[in-house]
């Protein structure tokens, strides 16, 4: 997919759905929302990339398995030939232990042929065109590069190094640990913000579904505090989805370094270029606590998004 400067791109569409808890019929919510986008997934292979970080029986830091299962069911109902689930956790190489701890199999059924451990997949060299970081190339999983439709499915969280971790930061998980280690330290050396840009530009997720039903604030992405927010945020432009999520969290997306840069090349950051559907930002706005190092991200109290 070609990189298109933001001023040449059509407006992006982002939908906010109010979802109070994980007991609701999320498959119906997600399916009905996806239908509004008329996505080209019929007879195609879809890869859902959730955020699976670590051992988490209470699902406080990982994308909730019910959201993943509901998205999978929805894409199958839309006619996808195959819906895979894949991630490459960054800190723990026992991916099976992580997916067992969140009980993913209980929601999706057997994972043997459905789940792809992106840490261990065959890799292909990808020359980076954005040159945001010092990395000139990355070795990325062939599954990610080969699917027809890639969906980033993060948890709504603050992050102690990047400010927030949403659908763009979630793409860190496609970088294979078998090449770069646990954690993927070479990306830290290349600069986290710039690496997020390079990886997102190289992988270009087609869609984003953010689990904001219960997010995480403070010292995320692992040691923060659970934060009920009661939303799912979906959209066809991951930058616009992330910008909207920031506004829901009471944060200024233009102050998040990597998002600000992504807004010039990968998608829309400007609220005026985002067609906002479903709930308004103001109606679901739930200010998230951030570490002092990121206090400049906070919106001024009187600034309200509609």
């Amino acid at each position: 997919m070609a990189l298109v400067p933001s001023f040449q791109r059509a407006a992006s569409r982002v939908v906010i759905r109010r979802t109070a808890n994980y007991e609701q019929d999320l498959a119906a919510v997600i399916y009905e929302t996806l239908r509004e986008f008329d996505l080209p997934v019929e007879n195609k292979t879809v890869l859902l990339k959730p955020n699976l970080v670590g051992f988490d029986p209470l699902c406080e830091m990982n994308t909730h398995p019910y959201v993943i299962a509901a998205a999978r069911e929805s894409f199958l109902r839309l006619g996808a030939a195959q819906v895979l689930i894949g991630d490459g956790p960054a800190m723990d190489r026992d991916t099976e232990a992580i997916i067992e701890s969140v009980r993913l199999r209980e929601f999706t059924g057997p994972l043997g042929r459905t789940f792809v451990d992106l840490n261990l997949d065959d890799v292909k060299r990808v020359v980076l065109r954005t040159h945001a970081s010092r990395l000139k190339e990355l070795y990325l999983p062939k599954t990610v590069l080969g699917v027809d439709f890639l969906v980033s499915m993060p948890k709504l969280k603050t992050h102690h190094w990047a400010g927030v971790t949403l659908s763009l930061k979630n793409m860190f998980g496609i970088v294979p640990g078998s090449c770069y280690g646990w954690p993927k330290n070479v990306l830290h050396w290349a600069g986290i913000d710039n690496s997020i840009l390079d990886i997102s530009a190289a992988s270009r997720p087609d869609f984003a579904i953010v689990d904001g039903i219960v997010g995480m604030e403070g010292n995320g992405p692992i040691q923060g505090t659970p934060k009920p927010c009661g939303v799912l945020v979906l959209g066809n432009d991951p930058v616009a989805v992330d910008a909207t999520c920031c506004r829901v969290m009471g944060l200024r997306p233009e102050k998040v370094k990597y998002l600000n840069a992504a807004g010039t090349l990968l998608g829309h950051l400007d609220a005026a270029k985002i067609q906002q559907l479903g709930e308004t930002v103001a109606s679901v706005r739930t200010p998230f606590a951030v570490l002092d190092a990121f206090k400049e991200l906070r919106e001024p109290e009187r600034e309200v998004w509609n």
Partner: protein
Amino acid sequence: MTPAGDNLDSQNLWSDSVFVAQFCLPLIRSAQNADGGWGFQPGLQSRVEPTCWAILASRAHESTASSGEISARGLEFLRKAQLANGSWPASAEVNRGSWVTALACWVLTADAQAREAAAAGVKWICNDWPRDSSTWRRWRARLFSHRKITEQNDSYRGWGWTPHTSSWVEPTSFALILLASARLELLPKGAARRRELARWMLYDRMCPGGGWNCGNPMVYGVAGEPLIVPTVWALLALRDEPKRPEFVMSLNWLEKNIGNARGAGSLALARIGVEAGGRKWPQGAPTIAEMYGRNEFLQNIAVASWACLASCPRHEWLPGRVAEFC
């Protein structure tokens, strides 16, 4: 797929050794690629890491001529995969050496025909210093770092996953296991000093209360949670000092957390760590066969290999001393 086509409802009858013989070893044998190596899953391209684990597993259960031939073909793949500078890449697509060099050398040191290759690898490892802990970096960090993120002593230096980055627990452990087992003539000058610094680095990075995670025991003043996999490798790397309080504390943590192993890989490694630490595997602990029934190991060759290695009674595949009573 179920082991040997049997119904896993009767899995309680399966001991891990039967499961290994009837399922894991056949899986490993059948997944060997034409080039002699193994991918992480059947059908994937050969990579150095799963090839090393599969060779160690095959060797540990070597009883027939065919299993010897399987290992020999694997060794041939490893020899061909070595880069000109003595290192091994994580994938054939990659043109740089990485942490898997320690694994390849570990496997090759036992092969008389590959001594030269192993020596070149050991030399590469000893020359690969982490960049974050150089004197210049430490001085600069002291002067300019406004945010104290982690609490660790950067004068202790181990090994990174990729060259010239930062020290982490697992690659440091693999390098230490190799250096402890390598014949003296393979070790370059300065290897002893590197071992010493790396051992101190591991002790320094232990989580409060014992055990290790990837190498961040404290972040922003909050204690990190230990994980089974890095804890086992660190214990194996440090097991020649079994009376050290850090070792005992970490072995205690591992033993206490056997029941929390959620993946077959963690469980197999936990068994290796506990038994190599000189303690008995508790009766009633979960079995690897039960775990297979859940996710089929995600068809992971490394996990199947660890299951094979865990079932070896005296862990003779491990270099160095193993406690007598395991």
